């Protein structure tokens, strides 16, 4: 049983795609309120790792425990964990046939059994927080990429999750929209949310992260505070990667 202040505990976890060993012996503890940034070269398994935490991907050995619930084949456990973890995707994945407000209220009404008025009030509150309350009655296709991603964050928050997972939330955005999304994420971090972010925004990592995790070839190669990680990387591959993304 993990300590009560542990949000996620991953132990000796392995994941395969067919015969391809995508994640190798992952061990990772995440405290409640901790902000983690995961980075690494393309194909290193970053997305796979965070998608295992809410069982969008199966894992094949070891164990994952989220907020005291064992992530196994028990459907109740899976539902329980998904209710408590929000996820934001690279390509937003808003529901195009529903308005922004409906996107935000659907899951609270169906899954949390909230009344419509209550769900709408909560949704408007979060749409205010991500600074687009005036778009509530539009459809996703009528919004810019940055606005859509902020709606996606609000939609996840409406479920009042304990943990937020971000999979490259800004990498499908035009440069001028990146900061509006990062600003929302920073303010979320300031509110004490537990966050696991896959991102290549190193400025964001320095400002917000408690810990930076570097992955390569399905393994966690190095981890540490942003200061250790950026100013004094230990591993050769980390140094190579940093010189590429930081451009020196």
């Amino acid at each position, binding site marked *: 049983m993990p300590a009560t202040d542990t949000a996620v505990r991953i132990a000796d976890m392995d994941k395969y795609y067919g015969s391809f060993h995508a994640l190798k012996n992952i061990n990772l503890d995440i405290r409640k309120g901790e902000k983690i940034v995961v980075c690494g070269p393309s194909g290193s398994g970053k997305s796979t790792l965070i998608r295992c935490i*809410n069982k*969008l991907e199966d894992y094949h050995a070891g164990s994952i425990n989220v907020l005291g619930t064992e992530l196994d084949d028990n459907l109740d456990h899976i*539902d329980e964990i*998904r*209710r408590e*973890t*929000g*996820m934001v*995707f690279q*390509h937003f*994945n*808003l*529901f*195009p*046939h529903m308005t922004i407000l409906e996107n935000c209220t*659907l*899951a609270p009404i*169906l*899954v949390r059994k909230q009344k419509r008025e209550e769900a709408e009030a909560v949704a408007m509150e979060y749409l205010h927080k991500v600074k687009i309350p005036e778009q509530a009655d539009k*459809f996703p*296709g*009528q919004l810019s990429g940055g606005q859509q991603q902020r709606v*996606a964050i609000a*939609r*996840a928050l409406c*479920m009042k999750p304990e943990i937020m*997972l971000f999979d490259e939330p800004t990498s499908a955005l035009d440069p001028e929209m990146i900061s509006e999304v990062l600003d929302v994420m920073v303010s979320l971090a300031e509110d004490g949310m537990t966050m696991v972010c896959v991102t290549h925004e190193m400025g964001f990592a320095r400002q917000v992260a408690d810990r930076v995790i570097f992955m390569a070839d399905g393994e966690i190669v190095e981890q540490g505070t942003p200061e250790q990680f950026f100013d004094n990387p230990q591993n050769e591959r980390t140094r190579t990667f940093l010189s590429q993304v930081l451009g020196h």
Partner: protein
Amino acid sequence: MAKTYHRPTLLDHVRTRYFATRLDTAMSVLFGAITLWILWSLLNWAVLDAVFSAADKELCGHDAGACWSVIDARWRLILFGLYPFEEQWRSAIACAAIVLVTALSCVPWFWNARRLPVLWLTGFAVFYVLMAGGYFGLKEIPPQSWGGLSLTIFVFAAVAIIGMPLSIVFALLRRSELPWIARTMGLVIDTIRSLPLLSIMFTFAIVLPFVLPGWLIGDKLYRVIVGYALFFACYQAEIIRGGIQALPAGQEEAAKALGMSYWHRISYIVLPQAFRNALPPTINQFVITFKETSLVVIIGFFDVMASGNAAFGTAEWSFAHIEVYSFVALIFFVFVFALSRYGAYLERRLAVASR
């Protein structure tokens, strides 16, 4: 000198499109003349030289015009078949009920997984009670005596009501994560789709009674409808599956990540979008289904096509087959055209909603 832009007028348009070169002009004049001549002849035949009332039957054949007297005299046979004459008002109201339900389905208020089925089941129940009778002091009239347009509408509506939910179930089973379910369903769908509709109708009408236990046999009409609905469902299932496959994988993932259950994901995220994607082929499928109801003639039913044949089957009207067929064609045209216009309207509307 500055060039100014003139908005092209209709005259400019005609000139550039049809009279640009000498050859263009010659072609336009030639085909224009032929078209006018055809339209004029049709108008003469159908209206100007035509005889309309049954009382004027003697006038038929003197001019070259159409003899609509046959429709005036026999329209009840064409619309209601062998349904007892003094009860035909029931058949008329029943048809009107289905037409009303179809019209109401165009109202967006009904577009919802609960209201639409309720609407259709209600309309269908009204239709059935009126046609079959046996309740509310209505004389009982067995399906063998149903006929004409009301039979065609009955078969069509019943096939749609049974076939549509069935097709959704088929499509979902074919996408099942359990390989043996998915593969069995695929085999069933592909088998039925590779059989001609006619052979399926025959099997259900004639062969099935030998195999089924007595209490399951039911009336021949219902067996044909079940067979037809199965055929419809297999085609429609593939259409829906295509609509589902066109969805980005991220849609279901986002719904999963929000903690939504399988049924919630299917009914709120997957199917509504799949139906949008699949709308044009779905309307097309309905059109085909409506037209192919005529095949029930071969099993011995008296649909609108067969009752049309009967309308000029007597010596008295045997010369008037062109008029009768034109009338039946007009009926089919009205239904099919309305259906496809409705499809086009839906598409435009949904395009606005998801833009």
